[in-house]
């Protein structure tokens, strides 16, 4: 859980390319997500066991060149992606996205 409650509020969401999503957060932090990294973390029931949280979709099932076709805002709390493999059911809350930030600072927190 980020300490600052505004940390997981995006101020800018940008599909940089089919390979990368960028989010700038209210606290100024900038996150860059390679598409396959996000796809591997899909929280939907067919990718993760709802009860145990165990992975059903294994990282190796997602090719490193997997592309993001579309990005949609869900209500005002999450993002939904259309992936090149046809998958689109995952709803990534902003809290989850902030927690998934792959930068070295966030990875060591």
């Amino acid at each position: 859980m980020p300490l600052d409650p505004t940390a997981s509020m995006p101020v800018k969401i940008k599909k940089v390319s089919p390979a990368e999503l960028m989010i700038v957060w209210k606290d100024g932090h900038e996150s860059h997500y390679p598409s396959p990294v996000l796809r591997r973390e899909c929280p939907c029931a067919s990718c993760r066991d709802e009860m145990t949280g165990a992975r059903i979709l294994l990282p190796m099932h997602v090719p490193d060149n997997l592309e993001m076709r579309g990005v949609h805002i869900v209500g005002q709390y999450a993002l939904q992606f259309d992936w090149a493999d046809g998958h689109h059911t995952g709803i990534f809350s902003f809290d989850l996205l902030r927690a998934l930030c792959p930068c070295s600072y966030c990875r060591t927190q």
Partner: protein
Amino acid sequence: MAFWNKGESGPSEDQVLGVLKKVLDPDLRKDIVTLGFIRNLKIENGNVKFDLNLTTPACPVKDQMRDQAVALIKGVPGVSSVDVNMTAEVRQSPQSDKTSLKGVRNIIAVGSGKGGVGKSTIAVNIAASLGAAGARVGLLDADIYGPTTPIMLGTDAAPQSNGSRIVPSRAAGLKFMSMGLIAKADQPLIWRGPMATKALQQCLFDVDWGELDYLVIDLPPGTGDVHLTLAQSIPLTGAVIVSTPQDVGWRISMKTLRMFQQTRVPILGIVENMSYYICPHCNEKDYIFGQSGGSRAADQLGIPFLGEVPLDIAIRSQSDAGSPLVLHQPNSPSAKVLREIAEKVAAQVSIRSFEAPVLEVE
């Protein structure tokens, strides 16, 4: 502007705007000049005339702001009279999806922890109050299993369609649509897919709501498919939670509150219904279940407290008769309480429309 007034005895536009800057909108916490509320300012022979364009016709402090503005302008040398024309333009709350519901400026959900606390009663009276104040209002009854709203509005006609769009009914000055009535109409088109989710989406996107300042959505009790679908399908301006003093320590409403918070739906405030009983003989208030539980809980949670509604047989009998109390007996004490709640909701909506960030994917 001031330049042209040099040498004349009349007050200048700058002088007038200067004093008007002292009038603050207590909800938006800015002055009415900065907020752009002053329109069509005309100064002629000592007469100062302008429109005061507020963010809602149901503004709880509009008389206060007008009186303050008039008093301040009258203090400007050379002013002989002041005419203020009160107008309102409900601002659009930030919408990420510009295509769906594009004519609807604000969407307010009314929910509760448990059933029977008076959600529909409060939703209908809030909607009717906003309508009576001059706003364009829609009401969506999103309770398929126990639709009571059609009874409260005295209309249970199956909705008509105009080609591909469903036309909302009109009642009590509102555009109205009920998921239950769509079910009754039994149009096969409507009942595909997971029932509640599909029906709600149709009520949102396939109904020709037209231009609305407020769309009020009466939710089923608790949390479920309809709530999640709603939070996922549209950016809600906010939610009103209805509770009663009997919901022990507000525990029951907490789950509903948390669900809205998790989906980042702003909580506009809490209404405590059936808070006290007004003795029909002596008009004395009797807090049967203890006093101020609701406002204390709201304080602790940092959520606005919107008001206490009495247990009043007139509220119920007007609902049963299909004509909301705020319209049928607008001067009764209970109608006044309900109207004040609607005004506070409108004020909270204005605050959200000014504050909320617009989220877009670039």
